[in-house]
């Protein structure tokens, strides 16, 4: 009995929650087998192999793999320095060695190594013969990559989707971890919680200080602070992301011109809206002529704008101009031919009139003796013979001969 009569229980009631759990288990689960510890202490009959306890905790018993030496293997304890003492290699490595019969090299000299064989005896039928298959490390870890947040999806798994930041995974990583397991009677209260509170109660009754409750209170305050910091960080990240997204949306929302149209991107829907589409220039030209769309004149005007000097109007004008020139050339040719004909007629008439007009010789015949004018005309050959030798004479047919 701590600090009082041995028959009087400790007047400390600091476990109302634990009591409720125990009473609820008694009322729901039927009578709890009593007398397992008939001498109010631990006895061998408490072993589950003889009388398994009525517990809804379905956690299987711990079965450690068997090592090369045939002894069960347990995870090695971490050797770290404590509250001021340097790390003692091989010392105080603990409870893992309590379960192994031969002292393990790294546990020699510790209290735990002295207490070898205190753990549950391994069952050779159920103990695994090999080390359990180790889960391979996540990709990137063995290559020195950054650790991956739990729950985040790798970018390669969604090549077509923009990688989004997983706030839930980040929050889960930042928040303090909750204890695993169902706890006592599935209530979530762990066994170490129950024993810690019992130890605190007993220590307080003895005038001491257990420290479990105070430590847990400090831990809870630390967790609350950590939770607050995590929430604040997440809120800042969300606000920052929202601000950047808004800025990006505003920038992407600016209208832009493509071709003859004005477009605007809508980031919320991912669609592009057409604000305005300007008509083509040929339509503007045809409309400016006062033509109605679809009429032959409208179509011809559109073709004229596009084809320019080769359009139908230009070609028509060229053809008419050529016709005009051709007509002019034909008419000019007729004028020229008439002029030539008239000139030739005038020439013919001039020549005819010139032939009919007597010449000066005709009007003034030579008396003879003169050159050319004194040639006698003979009628017969005898008369020609009568002329002096060397004299020129003219025959009756007009030929001039010499005697």
């Amino acid at each position, binding site marked *: *009995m*701590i600090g009082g009569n041995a028959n009087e*229980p*400790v007047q400390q*009631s600091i*476990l109302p929650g*634990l*009591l409720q759990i*125990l009473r609820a*288990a008694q009322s729901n689960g039927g009578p*709890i087998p009593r*007398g*397992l*510890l008939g001498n*109010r*202490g*631990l*006895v061998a009959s*408490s*072993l*589950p192999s003889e009388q398994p*306890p*009525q*517990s809804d905790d379905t956690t299987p018993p*711990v079965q450690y793999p068997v090592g090369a030496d045939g002894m069960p293997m347990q*995870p090695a304890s971490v050797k*770290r320095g*404590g*509250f*001021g*003492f340097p790390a003692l290699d091989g010392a105080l490595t*603990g*409870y893992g060695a*309590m*379960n192994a019969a031969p002292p393990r090299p790294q546990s020699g000299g510790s209290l735990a190594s002295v*207490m070898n*064989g*205190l*753990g*549950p005896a391994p069952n050779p039928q159920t103990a695994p013969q090999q080390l359990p298959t180790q889960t391979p490390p996540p990709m990137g870890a063995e290559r020195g990559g950054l650790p991956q947040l739990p729950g985040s999806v790798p970018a390669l798994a969604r090549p077509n989707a923009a990688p989004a930041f997983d706030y839930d995974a980040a929050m889960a990583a930042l928040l303090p971890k909750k204890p*695993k*397991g169902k706890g006592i009677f599935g209530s979530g209260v762990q*066994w*170490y919680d*129950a*024993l*810690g509170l019992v*130890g605190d109660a*007993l*220590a307080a*009754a*003895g005038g001491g*200080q*257990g*420290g*479990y409750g*105070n*430590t847990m209170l400090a*831990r809870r305050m*630390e967790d609350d602070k950590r939770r607050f910091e995590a929430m604040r960080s997440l809120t800042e990240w969300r606000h920052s992301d929202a601000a950047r997204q808004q800025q990006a949306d505003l920038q992407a929302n600016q209208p832009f011109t493509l071709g003859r149209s004005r477009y605007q991107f809508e980031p919320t829907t991912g669609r592009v809206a057409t604000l305005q589409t300007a008509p083509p220039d040929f339509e503007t030209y045809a409309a400016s002529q006062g033509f109605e769309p679809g009429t032959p004149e409208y179509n011809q005007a559109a073709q004229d704008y596009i084809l320019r000097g080769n359009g139908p109007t230009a070609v028509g004008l060229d053809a008419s101009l050529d016709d005009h020139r051709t007509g002019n050339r034909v008419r000019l040719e007729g004028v020229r031919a008439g002029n030539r004909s008239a000139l030739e007629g005038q020439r013919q008439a001039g020549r005819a009139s010139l032939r009919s007009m007597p010449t000066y010789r005709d009007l003034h015949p030579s008396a003879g003796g003169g050159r050319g004018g004194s040639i006698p005309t003979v009628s017969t050959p005898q008369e020609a013979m009568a002329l002096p030798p060397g004299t020129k004479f003219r025959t009756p047919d007009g030929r001039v001969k010499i005697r």
Partner: protein
Amino acid sequence: MTVNPYRNLAAAAGGDVGAQRALAQMSVDALCNPDVDREATLREGLVFARMAAAHPTGATDGDAARVISMLALHARYSPDSEQSIILGEAFARYSALVARGVEVEGVDFDDLIAHAPPEIVTCALNVQDAMREGLEA
């Protein structure tokens, strides 16, 4: 606040139960520091707490209760594979207190041990046997 465990170390080694209690409590107090390795600190503090609880003349039931609280803390910060061993010792020490009539009102040790996982009970029995053997030696 900086603590110097070496101030009490010589006295604790010489059998001063007060120094042993101080060192054990120092490890518990250090747990409030988030930069401290809780598991290692508790491992070292438990050595002195066990010494104080096993002191032949100065040990009290409060020292044994402190060991139970520290073992519970140690189980909380230890891997799941080691919790049954740690909690087994806590149950064994609790059982020793109950055997001496030291109990907490409203907490039935028999009910508690009846609902405990089998591996914890097995470890508790082994630790209890070892403690008895150590007292007899």
